[in-house]
């Protein structure tokens, strides 16, 4: 790392020395620039927050009354001579890459982002939020949650077709379909992707809170109900969208006989699927797959790449072999240690 890097790693988090602010810091600081609302990126306790306007309601829902300044995507603000702007990351509502420009250099911090497949295909965009936009830069700081060639996402159409088929078969067999997925982002993608004509859709309270922010932002979601609003006779026809913590909880008892499933990129691997101990695993992720990571990195034109959370060592070696100057930052994103999806609970949360 050279002395005039635009972003460096500090115990509090990633830090921009000329701007004197942090990016998604994990310890309380004075000024924090936030990429998106997931708990490992947007934490409590900072004095001032700066984030993309689309994510404001989610940040407020999660963090309460905070001192928050927002910017529309693409609109810059200058702070201590550093031009800061937000650009869509396609991960969840309001998720952003942060572009930093100072003294002729441009750095981009990706946060978490979603880009799938080898070629850009509008059918493979995350339609619950603004799709990822590549930003030209000199140095790209990228996530690598799924930075291994085993992670290639199937077309969304086929993923939702298999979720629908599972739901339909359960409804015919007279049992509810419990689909577990993180309440911010994953749940809304599920809701938008499934065929709502199969039966009633029930959401967990945690999901409903986030849905309200999405609906307020104009994101179309199908009609959802609370379990108390559904006729008991119809419960067996329901699709239930709930956070992972609901697995085997008493809350699920009211549905009687049910089949459970988990939606996460980690479900790609049979061992993880079996360890999760659900009936089905659907490989649906809000993160870039291996070809997506490569495409996103190439599109920035960056000569230098710094890899954060995920399979950093693999990505760094691969990038170096492609002739790109690459390094890694140790971060506390994703709450997983070094090079593997450690504890299922922690990594599933945001995958």
């Amino acid at each position: 790392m050279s002395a005039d890097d635009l972003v460096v790693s500090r115990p509090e988090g990633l830090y921009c020395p000329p701007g004197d602010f942090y990016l998604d810091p994990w310890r309380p600081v004075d000024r924090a620039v936030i990429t998106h609302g997931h708990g490992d990126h947007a934490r409590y306790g900072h004095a001032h927050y700066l984030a993309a306007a689309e994510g404001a309601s989610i940040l407020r829902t999660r963090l309460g009354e905070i001192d928050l300044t927002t910017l529309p995507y693409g609109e810059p603000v200058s702070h201590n001579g550093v031009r800061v702007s937000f650009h869509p990351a396609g991960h969840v509502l309001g998720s952003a890459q942060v572009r930093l420009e100072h003294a002729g250099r441009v750095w981009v911090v990706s946060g978490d982002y979603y880009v799938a497949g080898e070629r850009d295909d509008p059918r493979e965009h995350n339609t619950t939020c603004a799709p990822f936009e590549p930003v030209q830069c000199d140095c790209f700081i990228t996530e690598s949650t799924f930075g291994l060639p085993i992670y290639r996402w199937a077309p969304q159409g086929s993923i939702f077709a298999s979720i629908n088929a599972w739901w339909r078969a359960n409804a015919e067999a007279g049992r509810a379909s419990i689909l577990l997925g993180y309440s911010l982002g994953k749940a809304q993608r599920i809701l938008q992707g499934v065929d709502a004509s199969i039966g009633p859709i029930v959401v967990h309270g945690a999901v409903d809170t986030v849905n309200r922010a999405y609906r307020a932002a104009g994101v179309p979601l199908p009609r959802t109900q609370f379990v108390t609003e559904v006729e008991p006779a119809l419960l067996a026809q329901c699709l239930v969208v709930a956070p992972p913590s609901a697995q085997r909880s008493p809350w699920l008892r009211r549905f009687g006989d049910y089949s459970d499933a988990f939606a996460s990129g980690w479900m790609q691997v049979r061992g993880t699927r079996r360890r999760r101990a659900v009936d089905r695993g659907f490989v649906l992720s809000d993160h870039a797959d291996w070809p997506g990571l490569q495409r996103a990195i190439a599109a920035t034109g960056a000569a230098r790449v710094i890899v954060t959370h995920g399979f950093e060592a693999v990505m760094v070696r691969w990038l170096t072999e492609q002739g790109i100057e690459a390094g890694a930052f140790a971060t506390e994103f994703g709450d997983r240690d070094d090079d593997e999806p450690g504890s299922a609970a922690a990594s599933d949360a945001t995958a």
Partner: protein
Amino acid sequence: MKRFAALFAELDSTTATNEKVAALKRYFAHAAPADAAWAVYFLSGGKPRQVVPSAVLHRLACERAGIAGWLFDASYQSVGDFAETVAHVLPPPTRASDLGLAEWIEARLLPLRGADPVTQAERVALWWDELDSAGRFLFTKLIGGGFRVGVSKLLVQRALAESSGVDQKRIAQRMMGYTDARATPSGRRYLDLIAHDAAETGDVGQPYPFFLAYPLDATVAEFDARLGPPTDWIAEWKYDGIRAQVVKRAGQIWIWSRGEELVTERFPEIESAAAALPDGTVLDGEIVVWKDDAVAPFNLLQQRIGRKTLTKKVLADAPVAFIAYDILEWASVDLRERTTQERRAQLEAVVGAHPRLRLSPVVSASDWNALAALRDESRARGVEGFMLKHRGARYGIGRRKQDDLAGGAWWKWKIEPLSVDAVLLYAQAGHGRRASLYTDYTFAVWNRAPRDANEAKAVVDAIARREPATAEGLQLVPFAKAYSGLTDEEIAGVDRVVRRTTLEKFGPVRSVVPTLVFELGFEGINRSARHRSGIAVRFPRMLRIRSDKPLHEADTLQTLEALLGV
């Protein structure tokens, strides 16, 4: 192949027995007999030997996926399964195939064995390109020789019985030896399995399904209440050998292991001893190494099994005997419905004083406490404890849970394992369900007792600084590997500690700063020149995590030495 891959996916996606059986029945209802024959073979544990060497598959997968070898290896370490890694890294297929399972195996897979690597690679690449991810996973498992599936043989038998209407016990007996490496599945053999006529369809040398035993989970004080008086039971020493059946029919001998492998040629001493038995006799018992008129430790038998050819020296060093404890057929009559008492009487009349075909002695005592006292002699006798069999019980099939202790089950009343407190030194990621979790551990004991906590801490600090141990100083000596005995939550906890305390990574193995003490149990202990500690333990497993125990109180090499004499 598609249909079998779909069946595999269905079996893999549910843990409910009824759904598995239903999926199997749906498959059997539609599959051609030749395909079903192979499906039964694979589902009940049949494994063709590896057809294509792993190195060829590895090279080919990297080439097709356009990735470097190290990147494939990193993927494999995360997935924990070679075939699955291959299935995930390959580009999507460009063609499709409707070939049935039998054709895939007989016309494609088996002829590939022994072909030159170039031909093998060409063919496999073509076939991968015809299969989707599920099909590739399965096919690569089959050519790599590592196929396993989460159904028991009993479940396959149940599905066959329910879909054909043939009694399950009959199917179970016909299936004995079905997966033996020398017999090739065929449509004919499949139809024989589910044939309705009572005529003997199978091989004349067929054994019976083995009746398996349960560990007895009760204290001696409870025995009277739960088992009844000891006079209702036959107690025999429990030998640590290879469970086997000796079949004598039509002037010929067959020896079957519990894994349903025909092992006759491996044990010529027993074959010749059994020659004297009349036709129509089947004995159940244990193969052990019998030397100096006593049973020898299992590792001697293990060494003999490992030998490719049985030289005179091997036969002299590790002579085997068959210890008979049950008779399943006499004068060509199936005795399994008779009581243990009756079968025992018949057994005693049949098995004489041949040194290589011995009668398992019955041990009797006036009460359970007296028997418990005798059980304490087990280690000195080279046995694992007692087997208890109810006198009034018939010979069952497989292992079935019985709520009633005094019911028909066989009980293993084993002695407590030997145990020591050992220190975790290395950890390796597991496979399958435990992929990317550190589940396989190497344990060490001190070369001598540390004087105090400070001396132990100095050694740990030196390890953390990666200083090599001095030969004469205090050090931790690895002596055993174990990977079973912990709950999923405990494994997750240890996994976190391993990641936090990692010193170095050697591929999938990590060395850690020693912090954890485990109570390690094992069945036996012997001297070994091949281990750095000079000691080899049998069937080591973790009994519990000793979070209460500081490192310096872990056991020593001297503790292990002392157990050698037990």
